[in-house]
């Protein structure tokens, strides 16, 4: 018996070593072929779908092989990986996928290649304008949008219909609708409106949607800091009032992220939800309690102002130290081409960055929901487009959080944030 166990262990080790060698061989450049390394976050959808697309690229481009490597699913960890590798002049990967808020930073640092030739001005018009703005640094394009995301308002169609209420177009209407339904239902387990108020990047995404739909901005067109002002004050006051005055949002929103709110809404326990498009497919799954009972509309704005969904999504760039920049650009051109964008949408569910696809019959038949998304993506606004963005966000997060939980008045929180932000932008450039 003992002997058999030992034999099994030895066999296992040998097989492991052989597999290791085989994997090692794949990374080596065979004569005449280059191997691109493509780093990206976890790919949603069926596991083979994405590899299938890359296989298609390899078939169309003999001589180029693509090794795709997944990074941890946490966005913060991906950012950390890229920062350490790129600052360390690593050439271990060629193509990288970047969150919409990183491109300015990476471009300013000189870590990614200027990809302007990939997207000549006439080509840019085919894309949504928000992502194009986010990837443009000092007039040059540093990444090509890959897929797009934006904040949406999900609502319970069945409940709104029952009370004869149309989906709200303003924040005030949303409060009124939630109030009517909550009072009418009299269900203590039902809550009105869920959103993300935990101290993290998502809080900034949420807060900017109120601030900009009240006519406010963080930076104006000339890059002047204009956050602290009546619109932002109105926005933060309103967000706090959602829980304490109108009582349509439960107190837990001050610690909620996307998944927390998605689950409560998915359990049928909320009338409205602010979330990203990914939640739709989960709500429409066969085992979902609210399947067929929901609708989506653009987020409301304050009356008299247009709504301002925060832009999300991922962009593809090339490591400046890549040894195969032409092959890397070919891969990006392939992944962002109209046919592959359509295939990605159909097979993985990622939302295309090319506007024309939202009129594609086949795509709309498979994903009718895309029709509702078009207007949202068309007007989605990038977070402040500056290499300093991540620093500014780190300042705003605790200040906005303090205003939401009532530790500071909106005035004080905004004034404190503005002071620290002006120190970052115009004082000494960091310490």
């Amino acid at each position, binding site marked *: 018996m003992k002997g058999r166990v030992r034999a099994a262990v030895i066999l296992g080790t040998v097989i492991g070593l052989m597999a290791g060698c085989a994997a090692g061989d794949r990374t080596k450049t065979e004569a005449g072929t280059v191997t691109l390394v493509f780093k990206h976050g976890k790919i949603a959808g069926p596991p083979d779908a994405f590899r299938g697309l890359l296989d298609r690229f390899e078939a169309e481009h003999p001589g180029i092989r693509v090794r795709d490597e997944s990074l941890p699913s946490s966005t913060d960890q991906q*950012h950390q990986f890229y920062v350490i590798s790129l600052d360390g002049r690593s050439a271990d990967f060629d193509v990288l996928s970047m969150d919409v808020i990183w491109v300015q930073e990476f471009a300013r*640092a000189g870590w990614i290649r200027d990809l302007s030739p990939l997207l000549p001005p006439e080509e840019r018009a085919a894309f949504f304008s928000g992502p194009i703005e986010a990837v443009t640094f000092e007039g040059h394009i540093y990444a090509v949008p890959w897929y797009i995301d934006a904040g949406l308002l999900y609502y319970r169609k069945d409940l709104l219909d029952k009370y004869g209420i149309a989906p709200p177009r303003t924040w005030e209407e949303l409060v009124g609708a939630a109030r009517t339904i909550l009072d009418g239902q009299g269900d203590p387990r039902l809550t009105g409106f869920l959103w993300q108020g935990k*101290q993290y990047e998502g809080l900034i995404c949420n807060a900017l949607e109120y601030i900009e739909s009240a006519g406010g901005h963080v930076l104006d067109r000339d890059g002047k800091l204009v956050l602290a002002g009546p619109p932002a004050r109105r926005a933060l006051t309103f967000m706090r009032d959602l829980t304490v005055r109108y009582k349509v949002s439960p*107190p837990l929103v*001050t*610690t909620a992220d996307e998944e927390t709110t998605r689950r409560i809404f998915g359990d049928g326990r909320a009338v409205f939800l602010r979330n990203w498009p990914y939640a739709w497919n989960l709500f429409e799954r066969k085992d979902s309690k609210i399947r067929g009972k929901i609708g989506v509309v653009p987020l409301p704005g304050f009356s008299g102002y247009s709504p301002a969904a925060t832009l999300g999504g991922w962009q593809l760039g090339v490591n400046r130290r890549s040894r195969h920049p032409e092959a890397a650009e070919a891969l990006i051109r392939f992944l962002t081409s109209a046919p592959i964008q359509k295939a990605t949408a159909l097979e993985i569910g990622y939302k295309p960055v090319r506007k024309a696809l939202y009129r594609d019959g086949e795509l709309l038949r498979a994903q009718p929901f895309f029709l509702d998304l078009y207007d949202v993506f068309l007007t989605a606004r990038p977070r402040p487009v500056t290499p300093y963005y991540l620093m500014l966000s780190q300042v705003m997060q605790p200040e906005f959080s*303090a205003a939401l939980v009532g530790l500071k008045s909106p005035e004080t929180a905004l004034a404190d944030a503005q002071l620290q932000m002006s120190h970052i932008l115009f004082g000494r450039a*960091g*310490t």
Partner: protein
Amino acid sequence: MRPDERRLGYALVGPAVLVLTAVALLPILAAAGLSFQRRMPIFEIGEYVGLANYRFLAGDPRFWNSLFNTAYFTIVSVILELAAGLAIAVLLDRPFSGRGWMRAVLLVPWAIPTVVSARMWEWLYNGEFGLLNYLLRATGLSVEPVNWLGNPHWAIHAAILMDVWKTTPFAALLLTAGLQTVPRDLYRAARVDGAGPWEIFRRIMLPALKPMILVVLLFRTLDAFRVFDAVYVLTGGGPANTTETLSIYAYKVLFQTLQFGYGSALAVTAFLCVALISLVYLALLGREYWKRMLA
């Protein structure tokens, strides 16, 4: 010791010293070196600024806030862990059927990866779904749901409770081991002399456990002071930075805003605090004990 023996001793210790230098000392020195620079790679800034980062740190309210949070978290959680660990160790010292099982089960929270248990607690604390609020309602202790992680006064205590749940087993295990060293005859003799359970605990168990208690305190204090993953997953430092610890602040400055110089100054400060705590404990542990350990 003969000279050649001494030489052999150095030769044998040499590789270990080299490895320690390479993996521990050099990174610490590198971080200390960075902390004297203003270094922000995205703006191609990298210059020597002497103590400027530390001067800025002294006047940075966010640093003092995080230091206070860290100290509060450490003191409260370590005291609770020691008390609970001691109670469990004393209970487990009595022979009863299933004691082996109890000891094994006790280790479960300690064995779960921190990030996983933090996610689990996040749901326990959830204001709507959470088990904790359900229990409060069911027992009539509180009708209104408590917003454990979203309320600035509750959040740090929620993080402490999770840490206590997770690491009490570690304290209990070490203290149980400490109690094994007490000869059973002592208890019997004490009982013959008319000592009650409290007397036995105070006069026999506690003195015998003293070195082990210090070891527990040392390990737990250092761990708690460096706390990162548990709190980061649970609250991200919020609401309004009320749970932002020194490690979390350093992480945000280093890897989210890429201020390598100032971030390193924060990290070095955290390191100095930890080093200081260790020195205090080592002094408390006493020369006698260390002579025994090193002998």
